[in-house]
Each structure stands twice: as structure tokens, then as C-alpha cells.
């Protein structure tokens, strides 16, 4: 009897291992089977995948030339390796501090003014009870988002020119005309506030959505407690949109090093260059439009820029994770 039981247990154990083995086998076959069954999905994503590989990842390997003395004839593989020489040259160049300072000043100024603007607008719109007025303000403030950067730059040059409307206004108020575009000290403010004009409205959409998602009971409770509207904003609205704010802040900080370069390039002229030359416009000049394009040197400068950006986004994301438990990844 005992014997039988033992052997029974043994066969049971064998069966169990066998079953486990078949489960393992079948899970392996089912992975390949699942791939096979869905072959059409792989076919669909094939071209987008190749596109990303070619147009996003191959240029990343092209970054190798930042460490070379690249010559187009010899290609990346054949060009002479120079290590950090291109970076050293940039760090030692007269332009380095100027473009770094301009990039950081412009970005931080832009972040400090441009980031809170849509939040303020959204909070304000959220407390407008007249629906038609609200719709009108929204419709109007979203519109500049769709104006091209060329038109924005052209518009600024027109409106701020010595014969433009702004100087007519200054003259009407008894002031002296100012040629804004040729004075370096105005450049950053022009850039930042035209950015607010263009983007604050559209940027407010996301905050309005977050505000709409806040539990209405919180407001009712606050009302019963006799909280003023400002207290409601402080204790209900702001905490309610905080996760959105944090995410967008991370994304914006990650963009600090390459902010609005296309607009800078358009607004730039020889007279405001002291304030308007940023890293990306410098790369464009050194690497593309120069009579003797220095591909390696320009790539090194661009890589320096990207790496700072990457470090920034990782740091801010870590901080956000610790402090707030909201993060990009």
C-alpha cells in the first residue's frame, strides 16, 4: 500500500514536471506563434521602423564625427580621429561664453515668463462664468499658435520698426522713437514676450483640461467652509493641476538648450548679434552656411548642446520623482 502510494506520488511528480515543461514549451511556441499570427502588424510597422532607424538613429551614429577631423571625401569611417579636440576648441573659443550665456539667458527668461503665462490664463478662464465671452477669449488666444514663425518674425520687425505702430505710439505719448530690432538689449524681451503672445492661449488648453477634471465636491466643500475664490485657487486648483505642471516643466527644462532656434535665426541681424547668437544658430553658421563648412566642429558643438539637454531632463525627472511622484518615466 505504502509502495503504491509512493509510486503514485512519484508519477504525480513526474507528471507535474512534464506539465511544467509543456507549459514552458507552449509559452515559447506561443510567442513565435503570436508573432506569426500578427505578421501583418509587423509589415505595417516596417516602414515607420525603417524610417526611424534611418532618419533618427543613423544621424546619432553620425555624431562620431564630433570626435574626428571629418572630411566628406573620406567619410566617417575613414576620417582622422582627434578625440576631444573639437570640444576643446569650442570651449577655448572666444564665442563659447557668449553663445552659452545667450542660450541660457534666453531660455531661462523664456521659461520664467513663458511657463506661468498659460497657467495664469487657464486659471482666469476657468472662473469666467459667461460662456460666450469665455469661448471668444479662447478662440482668439489660441489663434496665434497657428501663425508661422516667419510671419511672427516679419510681424515683429514691421511693428517694431522705426516707422512701425509701436514707435508711432511712443511718439504719440511724447517719447523718442526706438529702433528695437537693432538694439541688443531689447532682443531677449522681444523674443520672450512675442512667444507669450503666440503660445499662452494654446498652452492653456492642457491646464483647462486638468482643471475640468477636478472633483466638483472639493469646491462645494470649500464653499461651505466659506473659502474665498483665491483660497480655492490656492488649495484646490493648483494642487489639482500640479501633476500636469510638473510634467510640462520637465519637458520644458529638457528643451532649455534648444529653444526656439528657428525664430532666433529669423529675428537675428548683425546689429543684435551680441544678444541673439545662441548655440544652435552658431552651429548653423559654422556647419552649414559658412563658405568652408566645418562639419566636425559644428557637430561637436551640437552634441555638447544635446548632452546638456539630456542631462537636464534626466535630473529634473529624478527630482520630480522624489518630490512629487510625478515623472516622465
Amino acid at each position, binding site marked *: 500500500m505504502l509502495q503504491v502510494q509512493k509510486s503514485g506520488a512519484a508519477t504525480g511528480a513526474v507528471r507535474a514536471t512534464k506539465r511544467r515543461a509543456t507549459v514552458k514549451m507552449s509559452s515559447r511556441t506561443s510567442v513565435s506563434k503570436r508573432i506569426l499570427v500578427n505578421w501583418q502588424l509587423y509589415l505595417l510597422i516596417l516602414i*515607420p521602423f525603417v524610417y526611424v532607424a534611418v532618419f533618427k538613429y543613423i544621424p546619432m551614429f553620425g555624431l562620431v564625427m564630433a570626435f574626428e577631423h571629418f572630411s566628406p571625401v573620406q567619410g566617417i569611417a575613414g576620417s582622422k580621429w582627434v578625440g576631444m579636440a573639437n570640444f576643446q576648441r569650442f570651449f577655448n573659443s572666444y564665442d563659447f561664453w557668449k553663445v552659452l550665456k545667450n542660450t541660457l539667458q534666453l531660455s531661462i527668461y523664456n521659461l520664467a515668463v513663458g511657463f506661468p503665462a498659460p497657467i495664469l490664463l487657464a486659471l482666469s478662464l476657468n472662473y469666467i462664468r459667461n460662456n460666450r465671452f469665455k469661448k471668444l477669449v479662447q478662440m482668439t488666444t489660441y489663434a496665434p499658435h497657428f501663425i508661422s514663425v*516667419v510671419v511672427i518674425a516679419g510681424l515683429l520687425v514691421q511693428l517694431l520698426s522705426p516707422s512701425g505702430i509701436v514707435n508711432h505710439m511712443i511718439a504719440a505719448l511724447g517719447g523718442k522713437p526706438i529702433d528695437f530690432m537693432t538694439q541688443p538689449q531689447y532682443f531677449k524681451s522681444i523674443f520672450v514676450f512675442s512667444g507669450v503672445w503666440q503660445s499662452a492661449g494654446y498652452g492653456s488648453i492642457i491646464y483647462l483640461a486638468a482643471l475640468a477634471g477636478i472633483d466638483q465636491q472639493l469646491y462645494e466643500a470649500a464653499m461651505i467652509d466659506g473659502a*474665498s475664490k483665491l483660497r480655492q485657487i490656492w488649495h484646490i486648483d493648483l494642487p489639482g493641476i500640479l501633476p500636469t505642471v510638473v510634467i510640462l516643466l520637465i519637458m520644458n527644462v529638457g528643451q532649455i538648450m534648444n529653444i526656439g532656434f528657428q525664430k532666433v535665426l529669423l529675428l537675428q541681424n548683425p546689429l543684435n548679434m551680441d544678444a541673439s547668437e545662441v548655440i544652435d544658430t552658431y552651429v548653423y553658421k559654422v556647419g552649414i552656411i559658412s563658405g568652408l563648412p566645418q562639419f566636425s566642429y*559644428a557637430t561637436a558643438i551640437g552634441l555638447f548642446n544635446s548632452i546638456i539637454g539630456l542631462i537636464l531632463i534626466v535630473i529634473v525627472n529624478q527630482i520630480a520623482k522624489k518630490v512629487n511622484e510625478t515623472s516622465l518615466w
Partner: protein
Amino acid sequence: MNWSGVMKNSTGDKAFFICNYIFASIAFLLVLYPIVYVISASFSSPIALMEGRVWLFPVDLGVQGYKAVIEYHDVWMGYGNSILYMVVGTIINVVMTIAAAYPLSRKDFVGGKIIMLLFAFTMIFSGGMIPDYLLVKNLGLLNSRLALWIPNAMTVFNVIVATSFFRANIPDELLEAARVDGCSNFRFLRSIVLPLSGAIIAVITLFYAVEHWNSYFNALLYLSDKQMYPLQMFLRDILLMNSSSDLTMNVADESMRLYLNELLKYSLIIVASLPLMIIYPFVQKYFVKGVMIGSIKG
């Protein structure tokens, strides 16, 4: 209950609401004024504009600026090119985006997570301008219309937006039911998914179309032949490089020509923005929707 407290609060609230209305109104007027001014300026006479008599409404109503723009051949060439770049480019973009987003949205798509990670990484790190430029050059795309289509065939951000839409809006049960009926993935995408995805297709089509219409930098980087320039490149030349003098050569009077040069810039801004201004009121809600879908994923 402390009634006086409620009363006090309601007067406080009243003040808050009034201040808020004033704030919103100022924001509204600050955004609106430049737009109104440009429209009014474009319909004024060159002399009124230069003398600074235009403040809010057109002065000495006229269409001289528009006449000069219409007679300028390059602008129309640019318009035609821009439409071509926008239409073809957007079709490529939308097809590519859906082809990438639909498989990525499927739970049973083995390897989807890795592919998504590979895609998303390109949003925070890239080769940059020079390697991009050299790649396009090496592929022989420089100074070809393809250079405005292929290097921008897809935006990863829009793929993520579309993926989260598919995930949220195509129930798994639908796929299972279709499977039971022997429906293939292609057929399911064509007959079930796409008809249910009108909203997201509209959203990404508009995102891409606006991007194409407004972009100038790729043309600046990759095109050298003026015949292929999109409108924004001509706008850049005229508005920012002041190359409009040849537009008004036939105007005899020197100062009048100068005035007209300024006026036509305003008209040109209106003409260039017209397509978007016309469709904007009708499609605005799709952009709002797009931002919302995008924000779910963060």
C-alpha cells in the same frame, strides 16, 4: 451658520470676479490688437500707413497692397509649392503614423514596448542638425522636393498620441469577435479601426498640415532652387531680407515705392495666413481634442 462671513465672502468673490474679467479682457485685447492692426493696415493706403494714421481701422480704404502681392509671381509659385508640400507630405505623415501607431497600440504585439522605447528616445536625443544634413546630402535628396517629405515622414509625438487614442477607443472585445469570424489584421484595421478613428485622423492630419504649411527651416537647409521654394521662404525673403523692391519696380515715385513696399508686407502676411485663418474656426475643436489626447499619455 455665520451669515456675515458668507456675505463678506460673496463681496470678496464679486471683487475677484471683476478683477478676473478685467484680466481676461486685457489678455484678450493684447492678443487681438496686433491681428486687427495688421488686417486694417493691409487695407489702408500706403501713405496713411507710413504717416502713422492707422491705429485700429483701415484709413483711406484700398487694396493697393494686395494688388502688388497678386502681381508678384514668386508668391504664387510659393503658394503652389506649399500646397503641394502640404498635401503630399500630410498624406505620407498620416499613413506612416497610423501604420506605426496601430501595431504599437495592440497588447498582443510582441516587441511593441521595445519599439516604442526606441521611438520615444528620439524625442529627447537626436543627432542634430549637421548629421541630419549630411544624411540627406548622402542620400542624394538635397535640392529635391523629397527632402521636404521624407526626412519628416513621421513625428514620434503624433505616433504616441495616436497610439493612446487606439488603446483607449478600440475595445479588445471587438478584436476578439473579429478574430472569431476569421478577420485578418489588415481587414480589421481597414473595416473596424479606421472608421472608428475619424477624430484622431482629423487631429493628426491637421497637426501635420499646419506644420507643413508653416515650416521654412527644412527648405532653407535643403533647397537651393528658387523654383521649389515653399511660400514661407519667399515670405522670409520679403519680410525679413527686404527683397521686395523688385515687386514695385514699375512705381515711378521713389518715396511712393518705399511706402508700397511696407504696405505690401502687411497684405502678404494676410495672404499667407489666409488658408489657416479660414479653416481655423471650423477645426479649432480638433486641435483642442488633440492636446487632450496627447496629455493623457503625458
